[in-house]
């Protein structure tokens, strides 16, 4: 079906250098059944208003840059279709809980610092060097982390998380899920370095298991599960540290 219809897209606009406050601007956009919200925004930029600013790259739900709020729900705009909203109008806003850089683009600095804090890379142990041999894993060992390795850093989970909204010090869903991804990998020996992030008030204890992160995740990463598994890890660490030799607590 290539029939063209028209939908009204209402975008949040904000240019911090010239605008005092964000405002909304509506555009009438012709669309066909296969057009995504992202393509709607691109139509606006190409034909109606070249100043509208938004991020995108892959157009196929893999780069994680096109996240925004559509009718108050965090979604990837390349994976969300205009036909599902027509004939109602849609409202497109930048991801909730983040500072706005301009229009629909957010400032990710806070997340990037948190991502760095979880050491999101393999930390092999010094005495486990396979030399130039491959480090093999069994299918079971791969399954332990594969789901958590699907994260594309789109930040929909942060926009969905009420705890991050209340307290931005919370390490948050994606960073904690990635922390778990590396801890769960048989090739990694860096758990001890990540333990203080888990154990902190802003670590897994900032979560109250609302579960919205796992609901909105386009890659089915299930950050809520990763976080709550690590509440058990943190509790064991809390009580069992008294059994460990002094100096290693």
């Amino acid at each position: 079906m290539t029939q063209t219809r028209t939908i009204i897209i209402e975008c949040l606009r904000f240019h911090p250098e010239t605008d005092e406050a964000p405002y909304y601007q509506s555009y009438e956009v012709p669309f066909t059944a296969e057009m995504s919200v992202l393509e709607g925004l691109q139509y606006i930029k190409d034909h109606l208003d070249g100043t509208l600013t938004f991020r995108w790259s892959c157009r196929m739900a893999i780069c994680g840059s096109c996240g925004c709020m559509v009718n108050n729900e965090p979604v990837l705009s390349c994976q969300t279709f205009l036909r599902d909203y027509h004939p109602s109008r849609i409202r497109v806003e930048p991801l909730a809980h983040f500072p706005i850089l301009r229009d629909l683009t957010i400032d990710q600095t806070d997340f990037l610092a948190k991502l760095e804090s979880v050491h999101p890379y393999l930390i092999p142990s010094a005495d486990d060097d396979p030399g130039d041999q491959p480090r093999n894993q069994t299918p079971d060992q791969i399954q332990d982390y594969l789901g958590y390795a699907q994260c594309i850093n789109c930040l929909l989970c942060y926009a969905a998380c009420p705890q991050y909204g209340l307290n931005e010090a919370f390490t948050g869903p994606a960073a904690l899920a990635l922390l778990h991804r590396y801890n769960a990998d048989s090739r990694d020996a860096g758990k001890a370095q990540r333990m203080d992030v888990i154990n902190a008030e802003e670590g897994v204890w900032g979560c109250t298991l609302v579960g919205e992160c796992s609901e909105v995740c386009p890659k089915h990463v299930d950050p809520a599960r990763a976080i709550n598994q690590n509440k058990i890890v943190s509790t064991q660490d809390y009580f069992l540290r008294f059994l460990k030799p002094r100096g290693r607590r």
Partner: protein
Amino acid sequence: MKPRSHEPIFWSLFGGGGMLAALVGPILVLIVGLLVPMGMGFGPDAMGYEQMRALLGHPLVGFGLAILIALFFFHAAHRILHTLHDLGVHATPRLKQICYGSAVGGSALAVLVALVLVVRA
């Protein structure tokens, strides 16, 4: 390095209370709310004073029940504290003292009552 949270203590008590509530709650509702009133499997005096008094006088039952009640209190305290946080009332040290303090008080009372029941059985 970020300071370690003491949440594991309260989370364990919360989890223990929640798990027991889920396990014991339905059984209690079944016995007290359905089976006994309908006379199914229990005699007419099953929940009479004498029977109950004797049951609670047994140390295992008395103190077991006290511990159960204590865990329920801690479960409730934790839940209330976090729900208040969700509603925008953030957990100040004072609020924590009130919530967990009530749980400690309620638990102490439960143990005390159990003690009296068992000793004077």
